[in-house]
């Protein structure tokens, strides 16, 4: 142990480190520490010249360990491990001291910073002599991919991967793919018909030889790890045999029971009990809503079965949920979003004031195939409004609800204003906004178009919507109470209709979903990306990617970009076939395990198995993710966490405290 030859390299990082830390002092001091063969300082260790310094010393001075004191290992650990490897040194015989992010950048106190740099460098030296050479663990990548969520992000990812020749399982909770985009009428700012651009993609998915489409299905369990996941999927009973159903729709026509459609039509319309959510649904097979089906409720009816023209009959009341086990290498989560529940803001009157609508209700209303055949009318179903107020930032940019900006609401609120102008040219339209946020290609131009179309813009957050008039002009109207901050006055705007633009928010079950897939989500419930800038579709869990609004509010083009990006990441792994994983893994000494079973439920990945015959526990290396929780738990101290062994950490503690406790006690 004491015969290691350590090379220590202290980086100036230009002036980033050197202007606060006395790097020459640190290097000189490091050179005097036990085991240190050579210690140098250099302007930029990560430069090719810096790396060559290391390589040269390994070869010429026979270094057996390398320490670089520079930036965060998250920045350049790979770089320097590479340098070691090129010079023939196992890359795990390297350790980094972070004297930039954790030191020179956080203080102006040169003396303290230099002392801390010595501590961190010394800790690395003390640790590195205990390092063991390690070999990366090869993992084969199953080329099948699971995509969860059939909205536009999931559809895009599925098509990208399938078109590239890879098999995809696309799992969707609802009876059809399409997601929120299928509910929309027009998309901003180009005003394309949403269904017209989405439907062809849905059809592609439905027909693609490389896509297994599992709608009306949910993932219930996930086991395994990058390259080798096993997903357990519940394919809920449709009571319609997909093998024989032609999707002719006669059953839907003949079904005598109607219910309010709370999902696709957001309560604005009805649907039959055997139904397709919308005419262009993919797949085309209907599904029986068991809760409301007369046959399931009362034991007779079977009108659908009676009129089904296929042979054999497609209706199957005995169908059971199927449990499928899918073997996949990677997973893309594109589970989408929900809209903020506007009832949480009672002063906006939704549910109490009948002509207050949500954005999605309005989307369905203006949709030609929607419940009003595209006519903008009040709740009575016939009166067109003479004036409409559109309220931005409902539940977003609000300390009481969501602090974040929901990003797309300004644009769709502008779109609504345009649609009102288009359908009811005489109507007065008011957009009440806090700030107008229109960054995006063609977005600002769309805003200017609305300015020219005569929309009234009121800059202010709406305080209240009321039907209590104060003056005759307010009689029978909804009054929007808002401070117009541009003129510095409170205004009361009487209108016929109010549209609330609620925030996009995470699905209510996103926490459970994130736990199911063993990745993180933030306080708002949005899934956490590996890096907010540089790795926006990967997650902290290898092999699990995220795309679309499940990661944060975003519009269609951004969701498409993320779907494609996630697909590209997965395709890259599939192409490689085998990837090398960090060998930071736990290992149980089989000779010394007492079989106490303390560690057995430490592992979130079920990587620890107990052998009943031998009464010992063992770590399945391929399943282990290297967290070390079992290592800390093992009361016998016989689980080794590679690269984070007790020896290594203890030495690091001793090293880092070099200046406060030099003495040993022996009476």
């Amino acid at each position, binding site marked *: 142990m004491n015969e290691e030859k350590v090379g220590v390299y202290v980086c100036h990082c230009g002036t980033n480190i050197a202007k606060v830390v006395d790097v020459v002092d640190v290097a000189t001091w490091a050179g005097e520490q036990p085991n240190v063969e050579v210690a140098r300082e250099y302007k930029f260790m990560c430069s090719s010249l810096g790396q060559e310094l290391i390589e040269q010393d390994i070869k010429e001075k026979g270094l057996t360990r390398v320490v670089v004191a520079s930036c965060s290992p998250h920045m350049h650990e790979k770089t320097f491990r590479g340098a070691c490897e090129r010079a023939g040194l196992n890359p795990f015989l390297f350790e980094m001291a972070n004297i930039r992010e*954790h030191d020179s950048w*956080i203080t102006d106190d040169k003396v303290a910073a230099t002392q*801390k740099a010595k501590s961190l460098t010394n800790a690395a030296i003390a640790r590195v002599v205990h390092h063991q050479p390690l070999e990366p663990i090869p993992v084969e990548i199953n080329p099948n991919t699971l995509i969860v969520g059939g909205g536009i992000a999931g559809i895009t990812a599925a098509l990208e991967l399938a078109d590239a020749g890879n098999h995809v399982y696309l799992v969707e909770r609802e009876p059809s793919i399409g997601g929120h985009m299928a509910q929309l009428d027009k998309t901003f700012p180009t005003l394309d018909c949403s269904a017209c651009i989405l439907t062809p993609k849905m059809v592609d998915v439905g027909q693609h030889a490389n896509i297994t489409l599992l709608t009306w299905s949910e993932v219930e369990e996930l086991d395994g790890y990058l390259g080798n996941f096993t997903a357990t999927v519940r394919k809920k009973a449709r009571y319609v045999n997909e093998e024989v159903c032609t999707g002719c729709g006669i059953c839907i026509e003949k079904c005598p029971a109607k219910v309010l459609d709370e999902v696709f039509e957001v309560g604005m319309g009805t649907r039959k009990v055997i139904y397709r959510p919308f005419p262009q649904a993919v797949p085309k097979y209907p599904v029986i809503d068991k809760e409301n089906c007369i046959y399931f409720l009362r034991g007779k009816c079977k009108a659908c079965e009676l009129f089904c023209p296929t042979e054999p009959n497609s209706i199957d009341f005995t169908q059971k949920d199927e449990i499928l086990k899918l073997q996949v290498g990677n997973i893309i989560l594109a589970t989408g979003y929900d809209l903020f529940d506007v009832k949480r803001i009672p002063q906006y009157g939704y549910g109490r004031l009948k002509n207050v609508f949500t954005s999605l209700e309005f989307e369905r209303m203006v949709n030609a195939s929607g419940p009003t055949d595209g006519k903008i009318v009040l709740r009575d179903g016939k009166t067109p409004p003479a004036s409409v107020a559109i309220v931005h930032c409902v539940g977003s940019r609000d300390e009481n609800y969501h602090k974040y900006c929901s990003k797309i609401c300004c644009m769709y609120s502008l779109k609504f204003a345009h649609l009102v102008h288009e359908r009811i040219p005489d109507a007065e339209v008011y957009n009440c906004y806090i700030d107008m946020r229109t960054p995006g290609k063609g977005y600002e131009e769309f805003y200017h178009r609305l300015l020219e179309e005569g929309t009234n813009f009121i800059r202010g957050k709406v305080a209240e919507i009321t039907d209590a008039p104060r003056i005759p002009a307010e009689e029978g109207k909804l009054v929007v109470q808002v401070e117009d901050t541009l003129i510095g006055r409170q205004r009361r705007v009487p209108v016929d209709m109010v549209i609330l633009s609620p925030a996009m928010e995470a699905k209510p079950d996103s926490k459970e979903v994130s736990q199911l897939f063993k990745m993180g989500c933030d306080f708002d419930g949005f899934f956490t990306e590996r890096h907010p800038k540089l790795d926006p579709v990967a997650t902290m869990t290898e092999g699990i990617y995220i795309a679309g609004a499940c990661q944060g509010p975003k519009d269609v083009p951004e969701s498409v970009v993320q779907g494609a990006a996630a697909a590209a990441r997965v395709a890259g792994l599939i192409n490689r076939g085998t990837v090398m994983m960090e060998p930071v893994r736990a290992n149980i000494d089989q000779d010394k395990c007492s079989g106490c079973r303390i560690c057995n439920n430490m592992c979130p990945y079920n990587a620890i198995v107990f052998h009943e015959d031998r009464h010992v526990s063992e770590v399945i290396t391929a399943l282990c993710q290297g967290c*070390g929780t079992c290592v800390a738990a093992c009361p016998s101290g016989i689980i080794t966490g590679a690269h984070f062994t007790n020896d290594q950490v*203890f030495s690091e503690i001793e090293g880092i405290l070099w*200046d406060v406790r030099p*003495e*040993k*006690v022996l*009476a």
Partner: protein
Amino acid sequence: MSENFEPVIVGFLCNWCSYRAADLAGTARLKYAPNMRPIRVMCSGRVDPQFVLKALRNGADGVMIAGCHPGECHYVSGNIKALRRFVLLKKMLRQLGVEEERVQLVWASASEGIILAEKVDKMTAEVRALGPLNWNKTVLGGNGHPVVKAEPVAEEV
């Protein structure tokens, strides 16, 4: 207690959240107490209570364990195990006369550089107010019998 006592705090930071929070604090050039000396572990669940005891024994005035927020652990629930150990350790450290402020568990997600920096500042101030721990000398030294002579202690920063 010397007038200009600056505590030394050993920080066990998890690779995914708190270490990155500390990286972010640096990248954002937040200025905070340089007293916390970080040791990277993969997960707060790796923090063996022995590490804390070892650091205290070896001269640390305080120990900070930092992990991802509950529910946000990169390894699902390692931080909850860290919390369970911490709660029991805290109870035991009370019996051992170690003031509560000296060993703290904090949560900081990768984006919470500012929170980590604030917690380090706060803990540094609290431990500074308590004074040095110096376990070997203060607690173990002077046993009513001669102790092996101590090597000179390096100057305090």
